[in-house]
């Protein structure tokens, strides 16, 4: 079987399109590269959607943590504590079993027991908490002179937040936020290892890598392939987020720009 045939059969296997049966014997390098690459679709899906949705909630959480209203502050603090203080792996398990039992009472929760929705919700809440903490730290270090200058120009309330505070907060938070994005994509590999089942063997990159490692009992091929995919993915994230970083810093002299550090001290 030629490699092109393999691509046609398995390139979209993780979405349920193409050959139904996974390869069972005589695994070629092509099989492994194509199928693991197919699984990466899920990693990108979870990562991108959770990141986009999480960004919005994280901004709200940062504001909540900084709010003077005790109700808003306490609830934001507890949310962040809950999701940053416990392992994502346990959160996935708990989320899955929670959705399973909710499903029995409320039919509305039917789709949540599947990884595509349920795991996305857990990842979304998790990354919101981590990013919220990063944004809150940045919000606290927005220079006082910036807001004072804005006030002097007659900017108040929502307009001041929208045009001064928020962009500055993002600019300060961005290097740390890039890390969070990278680790969020790494965290997507946990989805199918926890409670969430891979229906009809539609799994993510790690799911297929593990499949091959189990079948061939040789970890030295599938895991490096997966690692290669993730290095590419990480480089893409750094590139894209770096563009945003440039845009956020475009009004500053080059020297004042906060460059993302290659090896950060703080990880998630």
């Amino acid at each position: 079987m030629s490699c092109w045939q393999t691509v046609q059969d398995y390139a979209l296997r993780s979405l349920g399109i193409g050959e139904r049966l996974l390869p069972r014997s005589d695994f070629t390098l092509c099989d492994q590269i194509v199928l693991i690459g197919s699984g990466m679709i899920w990693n990108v899906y979870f990562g991108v959607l959770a990141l986009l949705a999480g960004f919005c909630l994280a901004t709200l959480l940062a504001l909540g943590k900084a709010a003077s209203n005790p109700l808003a502050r306490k609830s934001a603090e507890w949310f962040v504590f809950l999701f940053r203080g416990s392992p994502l792996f346990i959160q996935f398990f708990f989320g899955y079993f929670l959705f399973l039992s909710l499903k029995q009472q409320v039919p509305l929760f039917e789709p949540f027991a599947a990884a595509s929705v349920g795991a996305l919700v857990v990842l979304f809440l998790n990354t919101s908490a981590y990013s919220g903490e990063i944004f809150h730290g940045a919000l606290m270090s927005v220079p006082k002179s910036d807001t004072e200058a804005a006030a002097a120009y007659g900017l108040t309330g929502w307009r001041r937040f929208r045009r001064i505070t928020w962009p500055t907060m993002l600019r300060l938070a961005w290097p740390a936020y890039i890390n969070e994005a990278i680790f969020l994509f790494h965290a997507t590999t946990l989805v199918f290892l926890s409670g969430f089942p891979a229906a009809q063997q539609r799994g993510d990159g790690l799911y297929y890598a593990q499949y091959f490692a189990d079948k061939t009992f040789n970890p030295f091929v599938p895991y490096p392939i997966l690692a290669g995919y993730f290095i590419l993915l990480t480089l893409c994230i750094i590139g894209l987020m770096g563009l945003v970083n440039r845009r956020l810093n475009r009004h500053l002299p080059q020297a004042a720009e906060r460059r993302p550090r290659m090896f950060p001290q703080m990880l998630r």
Partner: protein
Amino acid sequence: MFDFCSDPATLDGIAWLACYLTTGKHMAFYGAFGTVLLLLAITAPTALAFGFGGAMAARSRVSPLRWLGKTYIAIVRGIPDIVFFLFFVIALDQGIEYLRHQVLCPDWDQPVRQGSDFVVCAAAKMPLGNAPQWVHESYGFALAVLTFAIVFGAFAANVLYGAMRAVPRAQVETAEAYGMSPRQTFRRITVPQMWIYALPGLGNLWMILIKATPLLFLLGVEDVVYWARDLGSAKTPRFTDYPHPDWRMWYFLALLVFYLLFTRLSELVLTRVTRRLSRGQATAGGEAMRRADLPAGPVA
């Protein structure tokens, strides 16, 4: 455990729960928390040692050693740690068996890899096929610890490498002016001073390590996740005296609370340690403490 537990069918409410929560399997579940703590207690110093070695290698003046150190550090960022966990557990196992195979069975003529099988001679099996159960379990646990140490050693190397570079240049220059060799400077000046710079990163790393312990389950150790899944799943009266529906949600809620308490406690301790280590340091934190202490102390 309790006398009144002899016939569970007659019990209800709290009494039933008290009996249920003290079954043999639950005792194994509680013991698994000990496994988690033991893993942390062994892994943290081992990973720190790996990290120290990695950071020293990355600073080395010998190029191959430096490349090795930097590559080791770089795995932190590019690749999900879980991939390394799954990889190293098999790779280490096979590596050890392969080395033993080379030493113990030199006259073996078949290849080690035959298609989908990894075949070594019986004497090279690790642990030996006839070893008692506890040896198998300890070996699995040791592999897990080593895997954790390698992966978290890379994280720690990253933190320590940054901390060593954060020690003010003037301190090192002064040491050189006093005629210390690079080795003496490293031992007497850099290492004692780097900890305060490393502490935020190491504290964060400890939190990550705590939160990574449920992954033991994936490495084949019977840990808290294993037992929570096992105990929580629905039980029918045929197989147990304590039938119940699917309770896994509640078991994982308990684990969630356990980890929340554990990380909270760690956070409190770390805050105190940071305060302690900041004393007398030439950092903003240390300076703030010095100023705060001034009026109280004797004025010269």
